């Protein structure tokens, strides 16, 4: 049997198989169903209604716009925030202190001092040209009664504004050198060991007992180096210095 004949034979077999299939018949109420549908009017249109069209096109479009808008807003917002310089500014002395014990020390860095590690930081006495920072509410827990410690961010008379580099970043860090600068201690730069070059007279460092020539070893038990950073609301308690070959733990007072 040739290929063509075999093919025809196979087709014939399939044809017979299909022809022998049991036939489905319409149910008894078929005519009634047809009449009922005709009585209803026009044939049922099973084509997709307006809803699937909406689902197919409008909803993805809206989602796209929302997602795109979200990212665009974020990009624009972060651009604005990162363009703001880090500022350490004195507030007017007249401003009433935030609720807390009267012994709360005041951090007042020299107005003409640039914070190390932030080359673009400039003292600024005016808020012109930057976004208004939201007012911070100080919880009583942030204040340590009895003195000897400093809330770096909420202290009386000092407003430390460190814009967040990223909008969602919650861990704004202040470098150890910036902390020392705030309390009036200037240390040698570009050296592995930080030695106090000068201590501003009347500053917190001076009042606590830090002297020029002291080697700053640790701040709040954190090693004093470039890598160390402190959270914005860290309370400054102690500074360990090496003086004449002896380590001294100096409690920060006012």
């Amino acid at each position, binding site marked *: 049997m040739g290929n063509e004949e075999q093919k025809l034979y196979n087709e014939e077999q399939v044809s017979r198989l299909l022809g022998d299939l049991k036939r*489905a018949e319409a149910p008894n109420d078929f005519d009634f169903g*047809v009449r009922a549908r005709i009585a209803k009017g026009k044939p049922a249109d099973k084509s997709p209604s307006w809803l699937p069209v909406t689902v197919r096109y409008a909803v993805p479009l809206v989602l796209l716009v929302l997602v795109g808008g979200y990212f665009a807003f974020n990009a624009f917002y972060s651009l604005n925030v990162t363009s703001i310089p880090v500022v350490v500014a004195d507030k007017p002395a007249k401003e009433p202190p935030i609720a807390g014990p009267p012994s709360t020390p005041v951090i007042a860095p020299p107005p003409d001092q640039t914070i190390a590690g932030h080359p673009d930081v400039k003292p600024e006495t005016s808020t012109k040209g930057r976004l208004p920072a939201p007012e911070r509410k100080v919880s009583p827990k942030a204040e340590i009664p009895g003195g000897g410690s400093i809330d770096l961010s909420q202290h009386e008379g000092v407003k430390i504004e460190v814009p967040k580099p990223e909008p969602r970043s919650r861990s704004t860090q202040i470098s150890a050198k910036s902390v020392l600068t705030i309390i009036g201690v200037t240390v040698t730069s570009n050296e592995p060991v930080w030695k106090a070059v000068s201590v501003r007279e009347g500053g917190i460092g001076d009042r606590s007992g830090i002297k020029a020539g002291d080697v700053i070893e640790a701040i709040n038990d954190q090693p004093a180096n470039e890598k160390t950073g402190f959270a914005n609301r860290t309370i400054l308690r102690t500074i360990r210095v090496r003086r004449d070959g002896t380590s001294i733990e100096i409690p920060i007072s006012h």
Partner: protein
Amino acid sequence: MALDKIESHRMEALQRSMPDEKLSDHALIEATRGGDETAFAEIVGRYRNQITNYLYRFLNDYEEAVDLAQETFVRVYFALDRYHTNFAFSTYIYRIATNLAISEIRRRKRRRLLSLTGLFQSEDDSDVEFQPTDHRTLPDVELVEDERNKVIGRAIAALPEKYRVPVILRDIEGKSYDEVAEIMELGLGTTKSRISRGRGLLKEKLQHYL
């Protein structure tokens, strides 16, 4: 005597009310256009089983087949004015049924895409088998026959549309090649080629039954 007359009158009235069996489809369509509802009922009676069986084999779903068969007649009814007698009514009605069935298949595919449950549903579960109620005890032979029908039904339903339609029309509905070509609006050569190809595909799947 009186009873005979009554019976005679009743038969005459019945004959008048029922369309002549010899009336052609075209004549029945004309009568329907003229407002004769019984003529349309005759058309439904002539084609309902054919269309139901055709759609059942196409969809492998009896309930859906009946629904679409009814829909086919409704469409025919509302499109009577647009119907031309250039070609056979059977060609016309099969074409409508085919278009409805193809639309249904595509709708099913869309539903399957959209449905989360469709992701986990196997192909075999998606179709409802036609299982007429039968309270008799089925002998083994009938069980085997029933299973064979199911397998063949699934094999047909799994064919691509372009092969499924002509194979069903030709081998199950017994249409001539010319009629199949007219229904599908294809050339005769293409129609024959598709039927041949469709049978070849079925042979591979139904080797066990050949």
